[in-house]
């Protein structure tokens, strides 16, 4: 590595285009939103930046919005926890799999992530809806049970007609959707830390008589903490800001912050309030990232 002063011309040629692009088409738009979050609507189309905090106060002081923010947080937290519980054994199995199997298993984990988010959500709808595959399977079992009961002489249709389960348009659907969509984000950082783990620690612990459970809690868990924290943040942030999953799977019953933001920018046409809500999300993101760098120590920002 050389210092930038050694070949200034090359340095500036390499640095300028990317930096400018990000400054104009990323930082400037965010700055506009940040400014808007301190603005007031003066007419239907005009807004004026007055430095007011009323948008933030409205977001954090109105029970309706406070309830939605709170709900977004607990739904995201629950989805993140579920991801962690499911992803840990998977990351473990992949990390300890024979070398021949590792790339195949990893690929199997990552591949769904590359399939369009919308398509995966749509696939979930056709599984969960009242005329979907889960209900279809349940109905089949139900009818089967009915005919068996009839066969052993308990009379026809003891269980009554099948009532399809309402699995869409509630909190359950949103949490299931978020877990389904963001699982790979949890597996990858966990896998990376478990893979780097010095296996001799585990062997030492087991040889000295600790059980597998004790080894997990006293050795593996503390040593994989950076991966766990990374995974939690990588899942929690997109969950908190998710818009598509609650929109399609939650309907009007499971509104999250993302849906409120969308409404402010489209139907409700209250951009300053939407901007304030977006920036509340941004502040939460920055807070989470700061927390991660605290845990990860000296890791650089480009590593995900």
């Amino acid at each position, binding site marked *: 590595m050389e210092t930038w002063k050694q070949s200034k011309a090359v340095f500036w040629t390499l640095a300028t285009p990317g930096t400018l692009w990000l400054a104009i088409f990323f930082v400037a738009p965010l700055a506009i939103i940040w400014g808007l979050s301190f603005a007031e609507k003066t007419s239907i189309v005009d807004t004026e930046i007055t430095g007011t905090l009323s948008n933030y106060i409205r977001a954090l002081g109105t029970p309706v919005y406070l309830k939605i923010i709170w709900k977004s947080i607990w739904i995201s937290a629950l989805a993140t926890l579920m991801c962690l519980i499911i992803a840990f054994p998977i990351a473990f*199995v992949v990390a300890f799999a024979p070398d021949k199997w590792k790339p195949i298993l990893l690929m199997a984990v990552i591949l769904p992530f590359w399939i369009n988010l919308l398509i995966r959500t749509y696939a979930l709808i056709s599984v969960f809806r009242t005329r979907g595959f889960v209900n279809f399977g349940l109905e089949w079992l139900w009818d089967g049970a009915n005919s068996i009961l009839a066969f052993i002489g308990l009379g026809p249709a003891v269980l009554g007609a099948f009532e399809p389960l309402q699995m869409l348009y509630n909190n359950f659907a949103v949490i299931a959707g978020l877990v389904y969509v963001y699982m790979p984000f949890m597996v990858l950082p966990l896998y990376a830390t478990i893979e780097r783990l010095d296996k001799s620690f585990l*062997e030492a612990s087991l040889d000295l008589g600790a059980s597998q459970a004790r080894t997990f809690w006293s050795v593996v868990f503390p040593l994989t903490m950076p991966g766990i924290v990374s995974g939690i943040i990588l899942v929690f942030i997109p969950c908190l800001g998710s818009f598509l999953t609650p929109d399609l799977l939650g309907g009007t019953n499971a509104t999250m912050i993302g849906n409120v933001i969308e409404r402010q920018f489209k139907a409700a046409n209250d951009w300053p309030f939407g901007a304030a809500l977006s920036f509340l999300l941004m502040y939460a993101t920055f807070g989470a990232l700061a927390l991660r760098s605290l845990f990860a120590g000296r890791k650089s920002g480009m590593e995900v």
Partner: protein
Amino acid sequence: MSELAGTNKAASPGGRAIAGPRGRHMTIGPLEYGRRFWLRCFVAATFLLLYAPIFTLIIFSFNDSRRNIVWRGFTFKYYEKAWNNDGLFEAFTNSLTIAVLTTIIATVLGAMVALLLWRYRFPGKPAYEGFMALPIVIPEICMGVAMLAFFSRIGWPSGMPWPLNLSAITIAHIAFTFPFVAIVVRARMAGFNRELEEASKDLGASEWQTFMNVIVPFMRPGLIAGALLAFTLSLDDFVITFFTAGPETVTFPVKVYSMVRFSVTPEVNAASTALIVITVLATIVAMRFQTPDKTEAT
């Protein structure tokens, strides 16, 4: 399997011996988590849940029934219908055009940033790296509404002829994809042997010749992987496009979104399957380029 178990038994004295069926002894080493029955079941069940919805979607795109739940025979009918659906076809063309343009520009920008970070030490570098990673970490919806506000504030012309009407979406896509390209290319460059560069210069090559004949050939797998990553990211994006797109520019995900809101139809299944095939192929090719090949001297 039994051979494997035998060698593992020798290697790990702490292994538990479990009497298998018919008295055959199978030993599972203490660290062979992948061979524990319950863990295996767990992983298999998770993969099943992960893939079952996608596979049913693909299978039922060939189903000869509008109800889309009971199998009524194999047909390509809905592929034909999706192909002849003008709105869907236009959206697909738009998506591919945006993805190709994004890929070209994002790859160039990303490669330049990667070279910059790989080659130079400069004041404020950690902060610069954080700045470059920002589009990756912030919630998509924040970036989406920011783009919406930005393009309306600067008065970006709308209603331009094709393909200029896609410019706003393309610009937004480049902004969030090129940092990903930079990460991939930089990871590839980390394995570069600087002595090759010195040798080239010692032998009289200029800076530019060294770049074209030594650095670029080494960088190529990273460039291809990064380009395919940018392509899939652009093709897949819904949230940012949803906010950036005007009423007259519809991309494939945005079109599917409006169709899904009305009903679940086999046409959507067919079009989705086509998109899945494209992205999965691109991803597999990208993965092959990303894995560092051992034959090459590094």
